[in-house]
């Protein structure tokens, strides 16, 4: 097992497009590092450079402290699980899992059998060893691909969107399974995904990429509570953070639906900016009717017109449309495009307790905790109040 270290790595294609731009990242021994971002952010390219399937244009790659830039993939001793599993269609499940051992050439047939069966037991593939990959279900294929990775003593695991071809339910199960396996084996892992839920649930640390540039590397908690910019804030969390225009006048902040005052230390961060983008997570709103009046000390209350609600059993989503300036609207539209989503209209998404009685078409009385808000520079997208953001225990 080994640490993996990436220093100022660049991948530039023939047309000059930098798919990966000056990324540095240290992945500790036994750590599970997630590379996450929307499609085209360079996460897969970075993984393939670590694997040795793409050349590194400039910068250095160290595996276990050794420079690995010029090593062939086979000499790096990494195991990889591909998005479409890349199972050899002409080989049985047994032979697929045994393939790396056979290539190695140092194992007797007995040893191979023992190792393959051990891996098959771990992944509950015992009954399928003699089948061909085409006879397996998606989940089983995925497990065979995992089996091929765990059967040998690799320095590290590389996962390239291993769950994206599974349906939602299976994805959840396999996610837990991968997490369990990784912790048991304690092996260094780099895991690429575009799914923020996978990133949040699996990773020791998560690296968020955007257009080949590293935005933030942090624990899932840190990413959620203290995102460095609009992009990270919008990418992490589901449903995503609400972004609303905020007009600033000293300590007074005016949102489309309410005005309130922020503490001086927050206002100090605004400088002389008069228009900001404020970010509030849907789950930080509450139905005022359900909140004890005593708990309202930090809270800002307001009333707004709800046009649609969705009751999910465990919570209630309410949608509140609002108007905004062309400038902010365009900025949010660009952001949505970068995040691979569609913004059809500017609206507030509010996640409330399932006990809330707010219905569609009603004027609702809501509150939110202003100390959990973020303020972003509308041009650079930087989070101005990141340092002040409360880190909940």
């Amino acid at each position, binding site marked *: 097992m080994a640490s993996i270290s990436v220093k100022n790595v660049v991948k*530039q*294609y*023939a047309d000059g497009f930098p798919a990966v731009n000056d990324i540095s990242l240290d992945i500790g021994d036994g750590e599970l590092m997630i590379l996450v971002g929307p499609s085209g952010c360079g996460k897969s390219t970075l993984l393939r450079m670590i694997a*040795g*399937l793409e*050349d590194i*244009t400039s910068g250095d790659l160290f595996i276990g402290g050794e420079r690995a830039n*010029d090593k*062939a993939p086979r000499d790096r001793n990494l195991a990889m699980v591909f998005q479409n599993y890349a199972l050899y269609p002409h080989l049985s499940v047994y032979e697929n899992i045994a393939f790396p051992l056979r290539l190695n050439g140092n194992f007797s047939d007995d040893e191979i059998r023992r190792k393959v069966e051990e891996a098959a037991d771990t992944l509950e593939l015992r009954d399928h060893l003699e089948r061909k990959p085409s006879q397996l279900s998606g989940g089983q294929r995925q497990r065979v691909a995992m089996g091929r990775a765990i059967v040998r003593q690799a320095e590290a695991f590389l996962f390239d969107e291993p769950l994206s071809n599974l349906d939602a339910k299976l994805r959840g199960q396999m996610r837990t399974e991968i997490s369990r396996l990784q912790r048991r084996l304690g092996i260094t892992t780099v895991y690429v995904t575009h799914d923020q839920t996978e990133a949040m649930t699996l990773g020791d640390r998560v690296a968020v990429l955007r257009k080949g540039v590293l935005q933030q590397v942090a624990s899932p908690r840190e990413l959620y509570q203290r995102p460095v910019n609009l992009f990270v804030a919008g990418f992490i969390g589901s449903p995503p953070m609400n972004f609303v225009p905020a007009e600033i006048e000293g300590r007074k902040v005016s949102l489309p639906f309410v005005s309130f005052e922020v503490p001086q230390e927050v206002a100090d961060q605004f400088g002389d900016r008069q228009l900001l983008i404020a970010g509030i997570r849907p789950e930080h709103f509450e139905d005022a009717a359900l909140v004890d009046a005593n708990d309202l000390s930090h809270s800002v209350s307001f009333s707004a017109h709800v046009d649609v609600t969705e009751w999910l059993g465990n919570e209630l989503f309410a949608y509140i449309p609002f108007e905004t300036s062309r400038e902010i609207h365009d900025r949010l539209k660009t952001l949505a495009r970068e995040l691979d989503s569609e913004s059809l209209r500017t609206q507030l998404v509010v996640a409330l307790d399932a006990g809330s009685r707010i219905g569609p078409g009603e004027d609702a009385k809501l509150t939110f905790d202003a100390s959990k808000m973020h303020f972003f520079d509308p041009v650079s997208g930087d989070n101005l109040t990141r340092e002040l953001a409360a880190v909940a225990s």
Partner: protein
Amino acid sequence: MNVEAAPAPVGAKYSDRAVGERRLGWKLVAPAVLVMLAVTAYPMLNALYLSLFSYRLTDPAGREFVGLRNYAVILGDSLWWQDVATTLTITIITVVVELVLGFGFAMVMHRIIFGRRGVRVSILIPYGIITVVSAFAWRYAFALDSGFVNQWFNLADKAWFGERWSALFVICLSEIWKTTPFISLLLLAGLAQVPEVLQEAAKVDGATWWQRLFKVTLPNMKAAILVAVLFRTLDAYRLFDNVFIMTSGAQQTETVSFLAYRQMISRTALGLGSAVSVLLFLSVLLIAALFIKGFKVDLSQVRGG
């Protein structure tokens, strides 16, 4: 550079790699292109050149430049037009029959589950068999001395090869037997691409079996049908083997291909024969162009079938 090393030359710079890939690509296709053109482009140009001379192999000294006179001779000769008519007749009859028959076969093969393998094996035998063998089989079946057809159908001593239309009938029969499998397999591939759900939708919409066939199935197979028809038309137009074996062009059954062969090889009239070859080539070109322009056959579809 080895073929297998091409996709991931480790350590190569991106620009070098792109250039290298280009070079490698050209190197790898060069032999194929060379071989394909060596036997087609050069001889064709050679034929074009020779067609401008009066030149017989038996009389090399008498070779003389005559310009387009060979073409005038051919186009002014009723034999050429008779051969064109014969070729077109055979082509139209065989292609139409093969299309209908082939579609029927394709429908059966598409539906059948039990015995699928047996049907496919038997249909591939005519496809794989040597055309000359097929020609002999049909010839002997219809021949006066060895044949059984007259006996079976109480036709007494009907001489099938003694008259133009009956001889053409047997030629077409052999041709149809031999090549319907090809067309039916292409159509089967086309049928497989019409989603079953469309049939169900049409049924729900109240379409009869015939309406489903003509309004749903066939329009969705248009590409496959046109490609099949184009290839078979060109193929039928080159008809040679069956005529050679069955009649040797007697009883006005000579096709254009046979005329070209006869001029060049039997009569060794290289000038005149070359002119026939060029005309044959041009007519095939014309047919292909008509199809591609007229029916908008998308030949890139051929790749997908």
